[in-house]
């Protein structure tokens, strides 16, 4: 069944979109990430204009993270205070990101920036996670428990604040900076930033793993919500029909994914996610490195 998307002005197969949403939803339910980093390249691939894909994907992430955060609130695994601090940074970052996005759009380099961001971040995160989970698997085999570093340079910074749910007493500077960076990426790449936020909270801020996913989702709702509004009012690129099709598949898939995820071990999950992230990264990197069959592209008028 073909559906004409009013903003993207292309006609796509509705079942394809539902399927894509469902598939990415399963993965996001399994791994606790928004799934935007997978969905946005897939949308490029089926011919949605990049600007529309990025803006609409932000809208879809609002739905999946809201669904997720409700589950975490019931389990009391959301650090609202930490989430708010991250959010302040996130909103500043999102505003900066939309500004950078518009500037680059006028230069005609937006596709390149989005793709480069993907290659760099997917590559780094994928590789780190792969090595880390491989080590974790080896450690569980040898029987020694993994230990977390308790004190590092981050604990020497001023403006300290107590985060009760996370059991932390640290400066607000690192969470704000993490928030800003993730906000910028969210706006440029159309992702919630979960796949960057989650490792940053565990390894940089030293938060306990059980509150990380919920807290990350909590602040992602607001950052992506803000990004959606900015894209809708400045670029007019949020396609509601596309968003609805994706999020129907996404929310259903996420619940199925949670069930599958509960049956796998944490390290196995992380290593699978790492392999998937590296595969997407490799595909995008090849596209940049191999000579495209068509050197020319057509864009809307305005600047160079």
């Amino acid at each position: 069944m073909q559906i004409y998307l009013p903003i993207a002005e292309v006609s796509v197969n509705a079942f394809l979109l539902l399927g894509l949403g469902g598939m990415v939803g399963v993965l996001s339910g399994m791994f606790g990430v928004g799934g935007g980093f997978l969905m946005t390249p897939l949308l490029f691939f089926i011919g949605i204009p990049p600007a529309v894909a990025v803006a609409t994907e932000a809208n879809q992430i609002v739905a999946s993270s809201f669904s997720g955060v409700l589950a975490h609130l019931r389990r009391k695994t959301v650090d609202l205070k930490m989430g708010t601090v991250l959010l302040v940074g996130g909103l500043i970052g999102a505003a900066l990101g939309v500004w950078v996005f518009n500037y680059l759009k006028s230069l005609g380099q937006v596709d390149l920036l989005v793709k480069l961001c993907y290659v760099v971040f997917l590559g780094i995160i994928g590789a780190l996670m792969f090595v880390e989970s491989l080590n974790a698997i080896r450690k569980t085999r040898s029987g020694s428990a993994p230990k977390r570093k308790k004190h590092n340079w981050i604990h020497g910074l001023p403006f300290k604040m107590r985060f009760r749910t996370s059991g932390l007493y640290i400066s607000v500077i690192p969470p704000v900076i993490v928030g800003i960076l993730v906000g910028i990426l969210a706006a440029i790449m159309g992702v919630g930033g979960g796949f960057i936020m989650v490792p940053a909270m565990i390894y940089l801020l030293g938060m306990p793993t059980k509150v990380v996913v919920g807290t990350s989702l909590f602040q992602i709702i607001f950052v992506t919500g803000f990004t959606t509004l900015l894209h809708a009012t400045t670029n007019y690129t949020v396609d509601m029909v596309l968003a609805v099709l994706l999020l129907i598949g996404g929310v259903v898939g996420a619940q199925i994914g949670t069930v599958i995820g509960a049956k796998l071990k944490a390290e196995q999950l992380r290593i699978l996610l790492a392999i998937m992230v590296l595969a997407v990264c490799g595909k995008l990197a090849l596209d940049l490195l191999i000579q495209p069959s068509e050197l020319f592209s057509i864009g809307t008028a305005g600047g160079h």
Partner: protein
Amino acid sequence: MRAILVLLLLLATPLKAEEVVLGLSRDQVSISTNFDGSEVIIYGAIKREVPIPQNEPIQVIVTISGPQAPITVRRKDRVLGIWVNTDAMDVSAAPSFYAISTSAPWQQVLNEADDLRHNVSIPRRIRSIGAWSQVANPQEFIDALVRIRMANGLYVLDEGAVDLRESTLFNTAIQMPANLTEGEYATRVFLTRGGKVVSKYETSIEVRKVGLERWLYNLSRQQPLVYGLLSLAIAIAAGWGASAAFRLMRSG
């Protein structure tokens, strides 16, 4: 004064000797949510007040042109090992869609001079003023634009697709793709003899988003804030709905 008028009428008569009477299967195309492209059938007759001239056979050209819009054509080049957009050329006006159907191969239906006068062929419909100041070889960019849009089915040249009978009745079907933009689609019919245009007829087909498509598009342009908030509300509702539904399934 009257002599001049008569003279003018006499001069005009050869042009008016053959005229187009046209019918369209539809003069309006509605883009609804399940829009999947559309076929427009164009049929007509050639009206004559003189016997059919025997020197050259009459030929028919039918064109449908989407709204003209400025676009930018970019070229990638290898910079530091990766493929990046380097050169760009602004095209001041190119139709979003352009289809040509003819009753015979192109060389037999229209000559260069009349093509230039009436802007019939695909490259003639693309206007690129001041392109020379932007890139070294604008023709390469225009060729690329035509090539890409032809590959996407947006520019079509269908030679021999007009069915012409007894030099009088003609009909053709033009396929409009699913990826249409809104606007007035100028529809032209040319009658030619020996490559020269002897008569021309113009009308238009209106392509409009309707229903939900129309409403969403207008809302996103006129009330972007409301549109954005509505998108968020839908997302929040869907997220809550899914969570509530699965909690019910688990407890039930």
